[in-house]
């Protein structure tokens, strides 16, 4: 049991990485930019997600005691002393997705206590996966998020808070000054960057960009590692004009 907890602890710590977009996010949600945008994890949203996954896992197609069917059953045991087929299955599932849980799992927030709790939770859920079936597995986070990943059926709107305009023309990944990627949104009334889990309107402070409709964003690397240059095509001064003009093409 102790070995199992240590394995989950180590693997979970490795799985939950620092979000390059500036926000804590579940490490398994890496199937597209939509998931990256969904990195604005608030406690309330995480609770909602957990609840949804729990409901999701109660589908009738899953038999009692089964783990996610997509988890390879023949996963190596990694030197652990085995204790039976169902135990292997549960441990394999834990080892295959040893991530921080969906609710509150964060590399930035996780101190030693949090990690210990994470390991404990994962271990407990593994035990539950053998005894109580897939619902408990869903609560652990790893399985459910992987299933979510496979189905691509849940999208989380980020809202328009911070965006200069809800009309988004383009989204681009732009490296910041340190080289870390950021999501930029070209909108009908300026340009915004997704930082620390929220949109920051960077055009409002610029006389050149304030209120401009941005139709596209491009990044040109400067020679000899001199950073990057950002180019914006400004279409019209407000989104209604831009919409009308685009429609008239």
């Amino acid at each position: 049991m102790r070995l199992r907890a240590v394995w989950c602890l180590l693997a979970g710590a490795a799985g939950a990485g620092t979000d390059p977009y500036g926000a804590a996010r579940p490490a398994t949600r890496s199937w597209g930019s939509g998931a990256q945008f969904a990195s604005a994890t608030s406690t309330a949203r995480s609770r909602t997600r957990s609840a949804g996954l729990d409901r999701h896992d109660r589908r009738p197609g899953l038999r009692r005691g089964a783990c996610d069917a997509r988890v390879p059953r023949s996963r190596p045991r990694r030197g652990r002393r085995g204790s039976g087929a169902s135990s292997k299955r549960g441990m394999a599932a834990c080892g295959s997705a040893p991530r921080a849980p969906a609710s509150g799992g964060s590399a930035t927030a996780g101190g030693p206590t949090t990690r210990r709790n994470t390991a404990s939770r994962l271990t407990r859920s593994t035990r539950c996966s053998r005894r109580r079936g897939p619902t408990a597995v869903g609560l652990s986070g790893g399985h459910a998020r992987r299933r979510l990943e496979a189905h691509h059926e849940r999208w989380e709107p980020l809202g328009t808070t911070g965006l200069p305009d809800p009309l988004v023309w383009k989204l681009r990944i732009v490296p910041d000054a340190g080289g870390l990627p950021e999501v930029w949104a070209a909108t009908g009334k300026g340009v915004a960057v997704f930082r620390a889990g929220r949109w920051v309107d960077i055009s409002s402070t610029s006389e050149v960009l304030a209120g401009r409709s941005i139709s596209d964003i491009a990044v040109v690397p400067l020679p000899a590692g001199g950073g990057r240059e950002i180019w914006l095509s400004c279409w019209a001064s407000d989104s209604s004009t831009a919409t009308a003009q685009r429609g008239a093409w």
Partner: protein
Amino acid sequence: MLGVGLVHGDGATWSVVSQADGFPSRNPTDLAVSSGPRGQPILWVASYDRGLFWRDAGGWHALESARVQSASGVYGLLANPGRRPDVWVGTRGLGLQSVDLSSWRTIDESDGLPSPEVNAFAADPADPASVWIGTARGLATGATARGKRWPCRRR
């Protein structure tokens, strides 16, 4: 003039590219970045009213293509870094333009495009030579292998 032109900056400070800088259009519509023969980045800028432009360390250049210049609008660009052509250009009414720094080729209905209005592109990551095209009358795919004619398949 509807547009305000092209803006560039470092993320903190911005400035407008004026006609005096060599970029004559105030209606840029789409941007793309490809790589030149020596690996240098090349910025492509499509415009609503003046055709297609590209910029390297030497400044701005207008694409010497009467076909593109006469297009009544450029809908979109798709850069093809490290491959040929440098960029795909979707036009209003003049089909798809396969554009390099030194040459271009027009792909239109005679090649199988369902419409000369090309709005969108996507390159297959598993096969970058294969491009999907969204037009005003449906989709088409085509391969860009050297020596092959564009074999559009309507979707």
